[in-house]
């Protein structure tokens, strides 16, 4: 299915926003302005956007600890995200969650999750709600290659299969879980593993927006049509360390430079839409400028935002006290 110009511009806009956001958070973290544990999504933009372009607000996603990209792709407010990461009032979670727990239920974003494998059971629940209330919605669990070995993820695949839930499991295999290679940590082959739970799937180049989009489109429409869960194995790479502060010595020297030069999803996207004449360089350049300005403004606002007040500490533990 062909994407029209507007959709292509939107896709590039989102991917570019994620990249700008992450590069900016990297700078600010390095400069000491951002506290806590921060995991950046740069390099993987085509995955989040390629998948989420097929979703609407009634669809849910569950993210991982590496959640900024999924948030943006699912339509969360970028300025509120930045405030959240700075721990400020007006943050998407009022400053209580931070990078690892960033969420917006109203956008169908069920949260980044500090627990590897925390999301898949929750997403089965979102899918169950959709199925029970017949909303027509689907639910997507993003899982890393490390999280693909967590029992909670594996159980969820079986539960989704047996209950025929409208869940799409998206394995973002960026080659590493912390410093451990996915080629080592995953016994067997992911698509076969999913098949072993009765879930059909395919492997896709996660740098290629169009490949991801198309595979996700097929998987999601299959699942939305009531045919049960689907699986995608996206092979991709991350540009930064596991978390901010990681020296990434486990990677070959130059590994990332080569990836940035040869397999960058933004560059690949540009080449393809420009060569095919679908979009013009100027249009994309304009988006680059626009998103850069947006992120700059987001940081300025975040830094100016007030700290949460002391009484916020004791609220939101319960809905009713």
């Amino acid at each position, binding site marked *: 299915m062909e994407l029209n110009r507007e959709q292509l511009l939107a896709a590039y806009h989102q991917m570019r926003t994620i990249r700008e956001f992450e590069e900016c958070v990297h700078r600010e973290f390095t400069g000491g302005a951002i506290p806590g544990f921060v995991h950046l999504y740069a390099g993987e933009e085509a995955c989040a956007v390629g998948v989420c372009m097929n979703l609407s607000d009634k669809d849910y996603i569950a993210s991982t600890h590496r959640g900024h990209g999924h948030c943006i792709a699912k339509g969360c407010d970028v300025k509120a995200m930045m405030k959240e990461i700075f721990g400020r009032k007006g943050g998407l979670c009022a400053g209580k969650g931070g990078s690892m727990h960033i*969420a917006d*239920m109203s956008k169908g974003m069920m949260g980044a999750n500090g627990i590897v494998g*925390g999301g*898949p059971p*929750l997403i089965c*629940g979102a899918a169950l*709600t959709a199925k029970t209330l017949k909303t027509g919605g689907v639910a997507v669990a993003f899982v890393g290659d490390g999280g693909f070995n967590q029992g*909670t993820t594996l159980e969820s695949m*079986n*539960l989704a299969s047996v209950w025929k839930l409208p869940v799409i499991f998206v394995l973002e295999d960026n080659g590493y879980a912390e410093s451990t290679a996915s080629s080592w940590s995953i016994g067997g082959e992911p698509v076969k593993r999913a098949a072993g739970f009765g879930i059909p799937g395919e492997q896709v180049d996660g740098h290629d927006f169009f490949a991801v989009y198309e595979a996700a489109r097929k998987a999601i429409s299959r699942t939305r049509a009531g045919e049960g869960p689907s699986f995608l194995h996206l092979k991709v790479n991350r540009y930064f360390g596991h978390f901010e502060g990681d020296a990434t010595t486990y990677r070959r020297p130059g590994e990332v430079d080569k990836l940035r030069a040869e397999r960058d999803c933004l560059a690949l996207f540009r080449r393809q839409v420009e060569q095919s004449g679908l979009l013009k360089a100027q249009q994309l350049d304009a988006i680059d400028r626009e998103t850069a300005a947006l992120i700059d403004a987001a940081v300025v606002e975040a830094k100016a935002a007030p700290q949460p007040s002391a009484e916020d500490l004791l609220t939101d533990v319960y809905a009713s006290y």
Partner: protein
Amino acid sequence: MSKKSFRQAINEALRDEMRRDPRVILMGEDVAGGMGAAGEQDAWGGPLGVTKGLMPEFGRERVLDTPISESAFVGAAVGAAATGLRPVADLMFIDFMGVCFDQILNQAAKLRYMFGGKATVPVVIRTMFGAGFRAASQHSQGLYPVFAHIPGLKVVVPSSPYEAKGLMTQAIRDDDPVIFCEHKAMYDDQEEVPDEPYAIAFGEANVSREGEDVTIVAIGRMVKFANEVADKLEKQGISCTVIDPRTVSPLDQDTIIESVEETGRLVVVDEASPRCGMASDIAAMVAQNAFKALKAPVKMVTPPHTPVPFSPALEDIYVPGPSQIEAAVRAVME
């Protein structure tokens, strides 16, 4: 009003809430039973028959059998609660918390806080606890103190059929995650229970008798024992207040403190393990907040710090009973 068992009382609360609110669903291993099998459907209604009859009325879409995958289905209940349903998940034995604890500890309990108040998680996790069934170390634990330790969870331990029905109704209507702990040795206990639905508020203790000499705070099955002891001692001139907190989290501190301020003596009886347990939680709270009123040391009655043994000969001395409670009351009266 009619005589109902603890089992019936819970079944009725589930049924009434499911009738009232289509968003209420049940899930768990064999909560209906017979899934995929050639024989009878609704074959089990849970291992002790508590949910029997609900699947025939509400259908398999609202009473869902599950594979043995507690993390996945408890987590699914949490996720469903956050997205618009009001699920009641059956964690068959509380001892099985270990295979799904993260979804309770880090997801159910924390989503609301971490998301800055922008999520509610109206899930109930029903679970069986308690010793006395010769079910050995992995099927006899108390463990609700672990849940009480976790901010964001509400923890209910009913002490009778009447309490069970009203507290289950409240648990389902409550917008927070609730761990509902049913003592497996109480399912056949009977008493008069209203036929119509009613809810018992959380955080309000029940004072089942008022006395002047000693405050006994007892939990779950221990409440019955405490009342027995109080009956007996009454005749011997020792008059006891018996308090059943009903919900161990939130805890009705005020009622306990006020009572100790009158009696000056406290015995706390709990069936869970002693270290970092409910007995020490309540005893410490009183020692901090009602110290001036205390005329004697607080006294805790609990099992010893051991796993639950299988052998009936050992289990019978493991579980606290009326004799230990009586001894404790006499000790604080000295």
